[in-house]
């Protein structure tokens, strides 16, 4: 059999193999182009993700450090115990602001003018008095002694030390004056300035002062909200899917319900927020701005996702399993709970995790139900006023202070970290289930 076309006279009829060979090159070229475009698209996508992550990480990593200034503090009994009685109430009500100012004067004895002193006071954060107050209440024995303490630096100092403020800028455009920079340089030369790990970022609630603002409040709010969301939507969603898929009669009503569920999954999330505002807060009187009402709203939003994913997972369980179970005399409910549901569980959990990840990143509906309020306290339960991470990011991104830029990025990093953790947990959980079955 000859495959190659023999050299043929121009008048000879073309053989099939010639036609095929002639088009072959073009066909392969088309395939190569398609493959190349696919690979290019994936590469481009990964590149953008890498740039995004690098940008966020580059902006955010410095928020995990905080500038501290070492200040000699004399715990003056005249300030702390003006009445002479060292009881806790007097200590709590003492003027720690004055203590900080006295300490700064101790640090820079040469400064005498009010203007100079005001600048020097501004180097220390407005959170320093609180720092001293908690120290005194924990160790009253420090009263009357002088200690070298590391106090939180002000936001502008922090920015300067992290290189976010440009010294070359004209003084008038800069937040920090030349004289202050001179003071700081002297402190730095004395080893009195240090950048340390910013534990406050993880233990503080939010604040007007960037150097004091932390994500603890938003994290706690997110945690309570997601726990409740899962409790609301998972059992309800799986139950609804099970009933609709396996038990409900197939008629126009169930068709209507199915269409509605599919449409609900595509409803803009802010509409769920409006619903929550109108129904849960205004009608049922659920306290606004709480994880409870947020979870109700996000639960409603997640429900269609879980139902759709669960139905698909149930449908993918082979009918032979149902027949096998029914064939040995299992009741329909036993068939579902002993055999079908466990087999569908990996798929159901994937759906649930997709839904929870969406809930974790959601901010729009929560704005409608008061989660945007400025809440300094870390929520302690499901009915405390709270905010959540995405809303906190939104609020910080909206703040004009330079110090909030790095905090915003850092909060995004934390949010992304939680998403990765959730997905990891999902993968591990699925693996475990798949091994068992």
């Amino acid at each position, binding site marked *: 059999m000859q495959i190659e076309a023999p050299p043929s006279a121009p008048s000879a009829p073309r053989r099939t193999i010639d036609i095929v060979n002639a088009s072959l090159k073009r066909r392969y070229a088309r395939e190569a182009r398609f493959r190349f475009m696919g690979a290019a698209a994936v590469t481009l996508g990964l590149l953008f993700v890498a740039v995004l992550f690098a940008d966020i990480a580059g902006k955010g990593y410095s928020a995990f450090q905080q500038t501290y200034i070492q200040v000699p503090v004399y715990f003056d009994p005249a300030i702390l115990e003006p009445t002479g009685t060292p009881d806790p109430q007097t200590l709590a009500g003492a003027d720690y602001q004055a203590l900080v100012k006295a300490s700064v004067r101790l640090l820079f004895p040469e400064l005498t003018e009010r203007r100079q002193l005001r600048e020097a006071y501004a180097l220390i954060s407005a959170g320093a008095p609180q720092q001293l107050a908690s120290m005194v209440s924990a160790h009253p024995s420090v009263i009357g002694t002088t200690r070298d303490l590391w106090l939180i630096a002000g936001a502008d100092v922090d920015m300067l030390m992290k290189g976010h403020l440009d010294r070359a800028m004209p003084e008038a455009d800069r937040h920090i004056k030349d004289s202050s920079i001179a003071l700081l340089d002297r402190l730095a030369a004395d080893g009195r300035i240090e950048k340390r790990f910013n534990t406050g970022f993880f233990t503080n609630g939010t604040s007007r002062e960037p150097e004091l603002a932390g994500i603890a409040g938003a994290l706690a709010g997110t945690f309570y909200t997601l726990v409740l969301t899962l409790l609301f939507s998972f059992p309800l969603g799986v139950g609804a899917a099970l009933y609709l898929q396996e038990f409900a009669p197939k008629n126009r009503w169930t068709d209507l319900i199915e269409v509605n569920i599919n449409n609900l999954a595509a409803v803009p999330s802010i509409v769920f927020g409006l619903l929550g505002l109108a129904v849960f807060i205004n009608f049922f009187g659920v306290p606004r701005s709480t994880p409870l009402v947020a979870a109700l709203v996000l639960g409603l939003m997640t429900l269609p996702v879980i139902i759709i994913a669960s139905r698909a997972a149930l449908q993918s369980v082979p009918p*032979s399993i149902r*027949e096998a*179970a029914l*064939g*040995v*005399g299992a009741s329909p409910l*036993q068939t579902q709970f*002993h055999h079908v549901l466990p087999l569908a569980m990996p798929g159901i959990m994937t759906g649930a995790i997709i839904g929870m990840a969406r809930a974790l990143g959601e901010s729009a509906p929560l704005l409608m139900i008061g989660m945007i309020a400025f809440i300094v306290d870390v929520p302690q339960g499901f009915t405390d006023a709270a905010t959540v991470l995405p809303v906190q990011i939104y609020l910080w991104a909206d703040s004009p202070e330079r110090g909030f830029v790095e905090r915003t990025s850092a909060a995004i990093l934390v949010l992304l970290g939680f998403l990765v953790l959730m997905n990891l947990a999902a993968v591990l959980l699925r693996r475990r289930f798949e091994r068992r*079955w």
Partner: protein
Amino acid sequence: MSTLASEIIRNTGAISAADLARGGRVSGTIGDITAPDPRMVCRGVNVWYGAKQAIRDVSLDIGKNQVVAMIGPSGCGKSTFLRCLNRMNDTIDGCRVGGSIRLDGQEIYDKRVDPVPLRAQVGMVFQKPNPFPKSIYENVAYGPRIHGLTNSKAELDALVETSLKKAGLWNEVKERLDQPGTGLSGGQQQRLCIARTIAVSPEVILMDEPCSALDPIATAIIEELIDELREHYAIAIVTHSMQQAARVSQRTAYFHLGDLVEVGETNQVFTNPRHQLTEDYITGRFG
């Protein structure tokens, strides 16, 4: 042969010219539809899927200690009929069953009859081996466990062992009862399904083309097993293989387009079919 038999045999004559003119549609069943010691008695069974009638006026007994083979071309209703016998058709939307099917005198389509215990009495083995994706032990123990047939772990262990022994699988799996049933070979899986079925001590076992997914060696083992199981159970088997029907069954029923055309002793049906359609089918002229 029971006295009922003579009443039921409606048409023992050859197929009429009028029947053939109507596209081979037959007006009644040829042969003896009764069994000497019937477990299940079916009379005038009609099944509709929506508006379409799948089987028409089928009457047949499933006798104790014998195997009834149901043969016929695809779509003739033999599997549909089989699935009526333990109400597996209940799970199909739009399926209606008319007529009378009795298990030991009890009408199984009676409103008061619960299909769950019925299926414990009338077990089923399916076309494709369908073990649960659990351990071999759990596969067999599942039925007895949900029905509460045993009082202790030891009893359950014994029941699992007996069932696996009856299904001829014990020696192959006794060392690895905790391994997944889905890891067995196709023939072993089908025997596991048989063990699972007999673990709940049914009276009747229905088999829907149990060997169609198996190789000849596994098929031979299953056929041998079916012959042994006959000692304790009434068995109805649907098969596409006429050789299989000839080998394992005592009675054969030939279905055609929803009608039960002919029933008889297997020997007689295969050597001396009385209906033209039966003859055409078993001689390989169609089907």
